[in-house]
């Protein structure tokens, strides 16, 4: 789904928490635009302020300064009642699911509908539909304590979708789940984005979550935005140190291994089904050592990077680099390329 208008506009957002002794700047001067229909990832180390950022988007947390415009409405100009209306147009899911423990799965889904004044019967019908969307039709009468983590998150997603929101905010929604459950929840989110056109904002500290479903990403570091852009762009050419830390998580270890000439090859989706390295070895009649390899499948295309240790002879090394460049790959020599 392609982005058209911006559904969320954040301008010079600052959030400061005041404690007795000192003030803590959680967010500083954040500017961010999220297009309608995007799956927008916000990634950062823990403590970077990303959870505060997502809570400012639905004004659960009031910004210290700056404006947040959602679907054309400046939230700072709304009174409490109007804010509640806006919140109903945004669903939210959480790391700990936050289901009502004394209500069944179905009653959890009807909860936001009851709050907005829908009739009981209508709400139950809607809950049945939603349970079907998230694949839990047989669990309507189960209590959250009888469900697995992944099932609980599915109920939470159904609950968040109940009021037909335009935006779904996900705060570390898969961080409490195992890898295979994470994958299935992310697939469900992607499906919801494609089928219902809901804009999804995903807060995470895991690069793999961004790679799997996001179209755009913002990297948040030390209370500010370090880098934003399309996922494929940021992933293949991380500009800032914060982005590089996330893209090469094991970078430090590698920089110590690199003693002689090395080169980094970035695959951007086109040629990665081609056995280019083995062809290069055959063509150049030289051996290389693979120091680092990270290949991912994103939206059907392959992305990734390789770090090769080149032979001692400069002549051969140059030949290898020239050959790779002739294959339309982006190749660069690296020495200690991470901070």
């Amino acid at each position, binding site marked *: 789904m392609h982005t058209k208008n911006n559904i969320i506009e954040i301008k010079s957002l600052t959030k400061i928490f005041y404690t007795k002794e000192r003030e803590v700047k959680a967010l500083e001067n954040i500017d961010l635009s999220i297009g309608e229909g995007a799956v927008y990832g916000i990634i950062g180390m823990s403590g970077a302020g990303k959870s505060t950022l997502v809570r400012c988007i639905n004004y659960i947390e009031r910004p210290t300064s700056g404006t947040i415009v959602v679907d054309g409405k400046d939230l700072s100009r709304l009174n*409490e009642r109007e804010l509640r209306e806006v*919140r109903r147009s945004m669903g939210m899911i959480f790391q*700990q699911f936050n289901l*009502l423990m*004394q209500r069944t799965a179905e009653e959890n889904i009807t909860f*936001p509908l009851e*709050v*907005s004044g829908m009739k009981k019967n209508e709400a139950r019908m809607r809950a049945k539909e939603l349970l079907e969307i998230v694949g839990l039709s047989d669990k309507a009468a189960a*209590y959250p304590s009888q469900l697995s983590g992944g099932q609980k998150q599915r109920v939470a997603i159904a609950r968040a979708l109940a009021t037909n929101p335009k935006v779904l905010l996900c705060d570390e929604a898969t961080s409490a789940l195992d890898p295979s459950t994470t994958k299935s929840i992310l697939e469900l989110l992607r499906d919801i984005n494609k089928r219902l056109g809901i804009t999804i904002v995903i807060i995470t500290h895991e690069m793999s979550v961004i790679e799997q479903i996001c179209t755009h990403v913002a990297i948040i570091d030390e209370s500010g935005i370090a880098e934003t852009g399309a996922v494929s762009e940021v992933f293949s050419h991380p500009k800032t140190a914060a982005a590089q830390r996330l893209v090469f998580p094991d970078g430090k270890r590698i920089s110590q291994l690199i003693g002689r000439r090395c080169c980094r090859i970035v695959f951007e989706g086109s040629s990665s089904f081609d056995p280019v390295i083995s062809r290069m070895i055959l063509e150049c009649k030289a051996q290389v050592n693979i120091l680092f390899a990270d290949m991912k499948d994103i939206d059907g295309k392959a992305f990734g990077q390789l770090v090769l240790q080149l032979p001692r002879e400069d002549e051969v090394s140059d030949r290898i680099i020239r050959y790779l460049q002739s294959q339309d790959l982006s190749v660069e020599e690296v020495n200690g390329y991470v901070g």
Partner: protein
Amino acid sequence: MWDSSTVTMILMGLLETLYMTLFSTLLAYVLGLPLGVLLVTSDKDGIMPLPKLNKVLNFIVNILRSVPFLILLIAVIPFTRFIIGTTIGSTATVVPLVIAAAPFIARLVESSIKEVDKGVIEAAVSMGCSPFQIIYKVMIPEAVPSLIVGAAIATTTILGYSAMAGIVGGGGLGDIAIRFGYYRYQKDIMIVTVALLVVVVQVAQEVGMLIARKRDKRK
């Protein structure tokens, strides 16, 4: 000694005790439940922060909780006369019982509601709930098992207090125990009444715990 009039007296005493206890508990909850909810919601981290009101309420609750029941019982006699018209009998005892129990119940309710997961309340806010909806659709229903346990504790405590009302001629089993056992040295009557009180407390506690377990969907 164990003629029919004694038995009737003890049965009447039992009925009076149950009447005093249940009626007082009910009235004390009418005051204590909203008070307990207000103590949580008006907290500076609550859903409707009103720090000044919170301080005042906490102060009043602590004062009432620290006055010994026996003293309260006598101190409120003029107030009891004003409301009920008399200071003797079971109904008159309900007044000091409610005054003593309401702040205690407020504390029980406060601690039950504080047990509700903050994340669930945050989720409710994110779904556009008003503070009032959060109270009656999230806080209280989610705290029900704990509130029932609290109610069992409150009921049995009030039962114990009601026995003290015998001092001021309040009626009930406690009154009988004091009049016959303490003043007239009729130990057998005292033992029977105390045993009855023990049974009532046991039953109330067990029934409360049973209902709480049945209602709790967390396991």
